[in-house]
């Protein structure tokens, strides 16, 4: 189970509002390569992982992604809070404002609501870990695209932190994949014959 901690993993203190940026950054909240997708992907896949290392890695990275979801939500909130409706509309957030006011809602930069179709949970640990490696690279690329559009250091610093975490997660998933591959490649020895072979004495 989980217990909430009343702190962010990385501080967010944005002084200047910028709804246009919020419209793009929210894609890391509810977009295809965003933090919600990441968390639910790993937390779902962990049940079918075959080694202790892979179970722990998916459990703990899936947990950290929830902390990242909170950071992205905080960035979007601080970029839009108190912005008047006409400014939201002028800056490209008219449709968002119509449905959600200043609330935080998981959707992509193009406005598509979050969907479980963004993730897979295949029951095949190699397929799942390969997906996770790709997911971390896609998230890194998205953070780099966002950083190409952001000047404000108050916004850049948390985005840079989140980008770095994608790289660390990629590294850890690569190690988990190697451990899983080694386990699956091992020869299997049976200390005694499996019980079902003895059920029909004939």
């Amino acid at each position, binding site marked *: *189970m989980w217990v909430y901690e009343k702190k962010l993993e990385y501080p967010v203190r944005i002084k200047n509002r910028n709804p246009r940026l919020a419209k793009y950054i929210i894609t890391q909240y509810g977009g295809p390569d965003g933090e919600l997708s990441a968390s639910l992907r790993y937390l779902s896949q*962990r*049940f079918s992982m075959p080694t*202790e*290392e892979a*179970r*722990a890695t998916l*459990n*703990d990275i899936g947990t950290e992604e929830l902390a990242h979801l909170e950071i992205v939500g905080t960035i979007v909130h601080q970029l839009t809070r108190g912005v008047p409706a006409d400014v939201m509309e002028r800056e490209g957030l008219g449709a968002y404002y119509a449905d959600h006011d200043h609330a935080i809602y998981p959707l992509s930069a193009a406005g598509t609501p979050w969907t479980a179709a963004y993730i897979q949970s295949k029951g095949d640990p190699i397929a799942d870990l390969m997906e996770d490696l790709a997911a971390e690279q896609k998230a890194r690329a998205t953070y780099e695209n966002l950083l190409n559009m952001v000047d404000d250091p108050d916004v850049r610093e948390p985005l840079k932190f989140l980008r770095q975490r994608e790289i660390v997660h990629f590294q850890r998933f690569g190690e988990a994949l190697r451990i899983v591959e080694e386990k699956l490649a091992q020869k299997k020895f049976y200390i005694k014959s499996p019980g079902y072979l003895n059920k029909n004495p004939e």
Partner: protein
Amino acid sequence: MDSARERLLREVMAADFTLIELNLYLNTHPYDQRAITIFNECLQKAKALRQNYERLYGPITPMTPSKCPWQWIEDPWPWQ
């Protein structure tokens, strides 16, 4: 998981669940002094139970001192 371990874990779960219930109740009744007193007492009990379990069987959260090898990854996970 052996039965003594299972029994102690159930006690930790029950103590923690009591805290979750009181937590939610207190969020909407923040001036209920009696409930706060019960919460504080239950918290002491839950902490002691958790400490005992972790000393005997290993960490419940990763933020726990560990022997080598790193004990956090050890089975069983709750879904196993």
